[in-house]
């Protein structure tokens, strides 16, 4: 009945094909409009699916439709099929909805870029891949989407190929996430080994019948994949560098959608995860620690996009904290609100950069409030939302995660404390950014200040729309205890719950008094963070600098991002290169033609003779064949 849902990934894919082949010959207006319209169409179809799904009784909201049998070999079977259930529809709406506005924004932001049609080809391909990822009805198709979004991300990070840093960042992103993908691949293989199938329905139905150890291994491996894709400790290093890509890309891929794929994966596989409570605890702790860790780096970074990147890492950490304690709906709810306010923050940052000819260093900003009113106010909304100020969206979702961290069966006070600390820092760093960019004395050159201007409507309209979203999106998830007599329900949780593992809903168990108290604590922490930022950067500018002077060790550690990049370089990259060189020079050159040559080289005086023997490649190839034959025959005879 939902076969038409194929249009959801199909329309952007069509855009990829058209723009990819004919984009170069089409006028810019056509390319941008087509790409945006197709993603918009995809959003409309998603809405239609959503409405149709709502029309179904709750227990029937789970429809699989296969397009065709994709692979069938022996007992291995996979179909190209989609699953329509609350979780996938939820993700479809987020991806296509936010994606649409970012496409529109891009038509303005990339308006003068020479790679215009290439850009929209990639962006459409990304949308299609991400939709395939969330709509797949089996792990293999999920994996296809997973790989495709990785490729798109990599292509878009390196979009400005002429900057070596962009190319390097793309490579870094690809290699780092490959580590995660290795875990993911092994996890999928293990699922097939354990369940004999990769279809969600069959796997989840049999989840209780498989040994706990196997489930644990599967969930750990899948989580490694999630860590890589969602930039959590220890595989987060690629995301800040990914900011080399165009800003709308950072907003869409590296904030709102792709990086949350890991959260989606854990939620999707929640029927497996509930059978591995130990792994869920790991998920929660990785999330909580990442949330705090990334927030501390964001405190001192001076690059507007990198601050937002660390903020993204931190916020995704919060989502993992949510799903880790079993509050899957809460994690996904935060995914939704985060998509709004983080996309908005990035687009606002892009608008600022657009006004300042690409400047990203907040030390060279300031006083932009009067120059760009729309950007200013929308940025403020987003900042308040991420800081968790009621009644903006971030408040409800963050509070729900924190409450769950404390009170859910899988929760722990330490998790709550980590999350709360991260929230405090979040409020602080985001308003540090805000005050430094928009308030105070302008610190850019007079000429730049003169040229600073508000962005065109194609950019400001999405800002306004997303700001409205960031402001009100929280109301779909207002906890029921606030006004039970008015019949308020947690719409998101209510909608999503049937698609997730049957975990007791957090709000059901929470006494209203405690719930309200936790809300107030969260609110107080948010306000405290903002107040501190105001004190440091508006009332007494310079306090921060003095603090940095007084504790240089802390400041430098934070500024250098805990020297993690350097450590990785020394630990993994260099040995990897050495290993490749060893195999090349070592095995192929030294060992093979080497033996004779090695000895000969030692006797340097006989260089003439040495050179003649050094060139004996063919005989050495023959020697390898001969040696291989001797070993092989020797081994075979020995098996007798």
């Amino acid at each position, binding site marked *: 009945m939902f076969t038409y849902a194929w249009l959801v990934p199909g329309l952007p894919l069509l855009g990829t094909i058209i723009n990819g082949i004919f984009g170069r010959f089409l006028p810019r207006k056509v390319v941008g409009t087509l790409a945006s319209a197709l993603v918009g169409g995809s959003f409309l179809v998603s809405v239609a699916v959503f409405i149709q799904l709502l029309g179904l009784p709750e227990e029937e909201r789970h429809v699989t439709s296969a397009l065709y049998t994709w692979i069938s070999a022996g007992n291995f079977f996979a179909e190209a099929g989609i699953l329509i259930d609350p979780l996938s529809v939820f993700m479809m709406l987020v991806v296509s909805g936010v994606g649409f506005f970012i496409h529109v924004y891009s038509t303005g932001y990339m308006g003068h870029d020479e790679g215009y049609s290439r850009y929209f080809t990639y962006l459409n391909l990304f949308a299609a891949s991400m939709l395939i990822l969330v709509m797949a009805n089996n792990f293999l198709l999920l994996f296809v989407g997973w790989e495709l979004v990785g490729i798109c991300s990599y292509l878009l990070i390196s979009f400005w190929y002429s900057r070596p840093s962009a190319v390097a960042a793309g490579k870094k992103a690809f290699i780092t996430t490959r580590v995660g993908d290795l875990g993911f691949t092994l996890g999928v293989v293990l699922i097939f080994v354990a369940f004999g199938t990769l279809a969600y329905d069959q796997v989840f139905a049999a989840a209780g019948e498989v040994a706990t150890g196997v489930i644990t291994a599967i969930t750990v491996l899948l989580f490694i994949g999630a860590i890589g894709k969602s930039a959590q400790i220890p595989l987060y290093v690629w995301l800040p560098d990914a900011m080399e890509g165009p800003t709308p890309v950072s907003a869409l891929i590296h904030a709102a959608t792709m990086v949350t794929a890991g959260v989606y994966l854990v939620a999707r596989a929640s029927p497996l995860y509930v059978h591995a409570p130990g792994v869920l605890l790991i998920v929660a702790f990785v999330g909580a620690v990442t949330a705090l860790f990334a927030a501390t780096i964001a405190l001192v970074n001076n690059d507007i996009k990198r601050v937002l990147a660390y903020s993204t890492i931190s916020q995704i950490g919060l989502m993992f904290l949510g799903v880790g304690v079993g509050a899957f709906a809460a994690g996904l709810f935060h995914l939704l609100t985060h998509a709004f306010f983080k996309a908005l923050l990035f687009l606002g940052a892009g608008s600022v950069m657009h006004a300042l000819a690409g400047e990203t260093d907040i030390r060279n900003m300031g006083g932009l409030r009067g120059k760009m009113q729309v950007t200013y106010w929308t940025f403020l909304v987003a900042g308040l939302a991420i800081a968790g100020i009621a009644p903006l969206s971030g408040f409800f979702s963050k509070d729900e995660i924190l409450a769950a961290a404390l009170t859910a069966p899988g929760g722990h006070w330490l998790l709550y404390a980590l999350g709360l600390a991260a929230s405090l820092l979040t409020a602080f760093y985001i308003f540090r950014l805000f005050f430094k960019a928009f308030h105070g004395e302008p610190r850019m050159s007079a000429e730049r200040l003169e040229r600073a201007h508000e962005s065109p409507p194609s950019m400001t309209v999405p800002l306004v729309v997303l700001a409205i979203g960031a402001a009100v999106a929280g109301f779909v998830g207002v906890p029921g205890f606030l006004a039970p007599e008015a019949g308020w329900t947690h719409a998101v949780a209510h909608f999503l719950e049937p698609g997730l593992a049957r975990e007791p809903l957090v709000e059901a168990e929470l006494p209203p008094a405690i719930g309200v108290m936790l809300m107030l604590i969260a609110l107080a922490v948010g306000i405290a963070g903002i107040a501190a930022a105001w004190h440091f950067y508006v009332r007494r500018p310079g306090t921060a600098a003095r603090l940095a002077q007084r504790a240089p060790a802390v400041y430098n550690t934070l500024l250098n991002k805990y020297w993690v990049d350097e450590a990785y370089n020394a630990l993994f990259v260099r040995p990897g290169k050495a290993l490749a060189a060893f195999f090349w020079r070592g095995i*192929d050159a030294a060992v093979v*033609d080497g033996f004779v040559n090695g000895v000969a080289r030692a006797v340097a005086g006989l260089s003439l003779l040495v050179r003649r*023997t050094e060139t004996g*490649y*063919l005989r050495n190839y*023959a020697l390898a064949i*001969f040696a291989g034959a001797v070993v092989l025959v020797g081994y075979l005879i020995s098996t007798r």
Partner: protein
Amino acid sequence: MLPAHYYLMLSAVLFTTGTLGVLIRRNPIIMFMSIELMLNAANLAFITFSRYQRSLDGHIFVFIIMTVAAAEVAVGLGIIISIFRTRTDINIDDLNIMKG
């Protein structure tokens, strides 16, 4: 009739001699002759097995292998000569532009 293993030993010795020739010699023609020796070792083994199993198959194989060897000679000499035309010596160790 001599026991079969006499012939087989000779065949093995021939095969080893040929292999060592390929590994040690530097003149492609001599190397190729060593390969011929290996083929002939196989021929001897075929004949022996054929004779002692009282079937004629092995004899036929020998002719097939000899024919193939002749074809290889034709091509091999052609390649050697074409190299000889551009460079005057045919030391196999000089053929090392490509490596790695």
